[in-house]
């Protein structure tokens, strides 16, 4: 008999949820979930900007250099630099001279921690503060995920089917204007919400944040990755979607009226690995090698 089971926890100041579906050993599931929490909390101790003793806080206080910090700090800062270059500066972890890599850390850490769930051999998804990483053993039975409506509490904007991959949503509806445009230093005011669906939570999350800053027109401009689809809601309520998004909408479910289709960007492709969940992992080595 198929079982469903869930656990949730506050990590990194955000609510995380883990849902399992299918057949799994209860004891193994409890142990795997405990490992996920443990790993996420360890990451938080290194990267939290709210902890005075985290490596990031010490770096910002001038009491530690990135080179002297935990080795994972360099890994994350490398990813952040790739993200900045990829997005034409729309995504930047440095602001006013301070380092806040939270926008990279959440997706990176959640993706890595979710590896502990793979050995269970069942379907799972991890919701990391509203961004979801999903894995389904049977492609015919994907997870059916709602995208929150940006302005109507408790309502859905759209429902998508997601087998193996990620769905990240960025915007301004829960925390006020928390997306700052690095170029102006001001909260962006054109886009209310952006959801991005792609192979990895790391890059879906980064692109969602960048697209909130850059707006729909940043996609044809080329600051985008192939295999990623986006759904935008403007502050005026208009809805834009990339060409392939409609294919991901769940049949017979809530679907938005799309005012404008954004043409493909001829996006940059950079796949050199496969995530544990079967998605392609975008390491952006093309940035390292200078290929653009």
């Amino acid at each position, binding site marked *: 008999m198929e079982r469903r*089971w*869930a656990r949730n926890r*506050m990590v990194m100041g955000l609510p995380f949820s883990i849902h399992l579906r299918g057949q799994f050993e209860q004891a193994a599931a409890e142990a795997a979930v405990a490992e996920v929490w443990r790993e996420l909390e360890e990451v938080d101790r290194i990267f939290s900007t709210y902890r005075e003793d985290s490596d990031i806080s010490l770096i910002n206080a001038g009491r530690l250099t990135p080179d002297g910090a935990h080795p994972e700090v360099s890994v994350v800062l490398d990813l952040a630099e790739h993200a900045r270059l990829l997005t034409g500066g729309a995504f930047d972890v440095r602001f006013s001279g301070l380092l806040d890599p939270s926008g990279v850390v959440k997706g990176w850490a959640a993706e890595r921690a979710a590896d502990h769930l793979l050995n269970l051999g069942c379907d799972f998804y991890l919701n990391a503060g*509203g961004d979801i990483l999903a894995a389904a053993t049977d492609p015919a039975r994907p997870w059916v995920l709602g995208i929150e409506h940006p302005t109507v509490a408790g309502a859905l904007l759209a429902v998508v089917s997601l087998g193996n991959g990620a769905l990240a949503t960025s915007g301004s509806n829960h925390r006020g204007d928390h997306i700052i445009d690095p170029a102006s230093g001001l909260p962006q005011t054109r886009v209310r919400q952006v959801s991005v669906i792609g192979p990895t939570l790391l890059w879906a999350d980064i692109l969602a944040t960048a697209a909130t800053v850059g707006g729909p027109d940043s996609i044809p401009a080329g600051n985008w990755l192939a295999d990623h689809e986006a759904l935008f809601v403007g502050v005026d309520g208009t809805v834009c979607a990339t060409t392939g998004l409609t294919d991901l909408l769940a049949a017979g479910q809530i679907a938005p009226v799309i005012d404008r289709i954004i043409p493909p960007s001829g996006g940059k492709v950079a796949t050199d690995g496969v995530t544990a969940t079967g998605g392609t992992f975008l390491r952006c080595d093309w940035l390292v090698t200078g290929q653009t």
Partner: protein
Amino acid sequence: MRRISFAIVSTLAALVLLFSYKTSGPGTATAESSSVAHIVSGPSAGASQSGTTSSATPSSGTTAAAPPDPAASTSSAKGTTRAKSPTSSTPGTSQAPASTAPVVVDGSAVNTQYGPVQVEVTITGGKITSVQAIDYPNGNGRDAQINSYAVPQLESQAVSAQSAKIDGVSGATYTSEGFVQSLQSALDAANFGG
């Protein structure tokens, strides 16, 4: 039948714990709480479950089954006499949502920095049909918010999430405060049981 009890009680625990999200600010994710839930009435009113006493995180609320305790009236659970149906079926027989008799479960009071919050959940035919706060803080604006906003939200969403054909919800960053009112939190609660 015992398994159903666990599921129900776990669901309740989730709801109780979700309240702790609401009432604990950022950085204070672990409200001091004691999660002890009691089934007030229903086919399997015998089972009770004790959560841990130190943490508000649901993952720590997993548990060992206590021996049947028909009294189900120890210490903190208030309103344990609010039976909405007589106990009926034979324990230990059928599987899952076999019974459609309403089961009423009371959570113990969760002591938050704003005061105790206690919820009562009614499960009918294996589905949550009602969530009510039977004890919540009174006295300041924050409490009034819990009373007038979060409770009805939680109730309607816990019920509707089970009929919605979705597994999860993606949204722009959930905060600790916003999460309790989110559809995802209701989905978590609905699937919380073993």
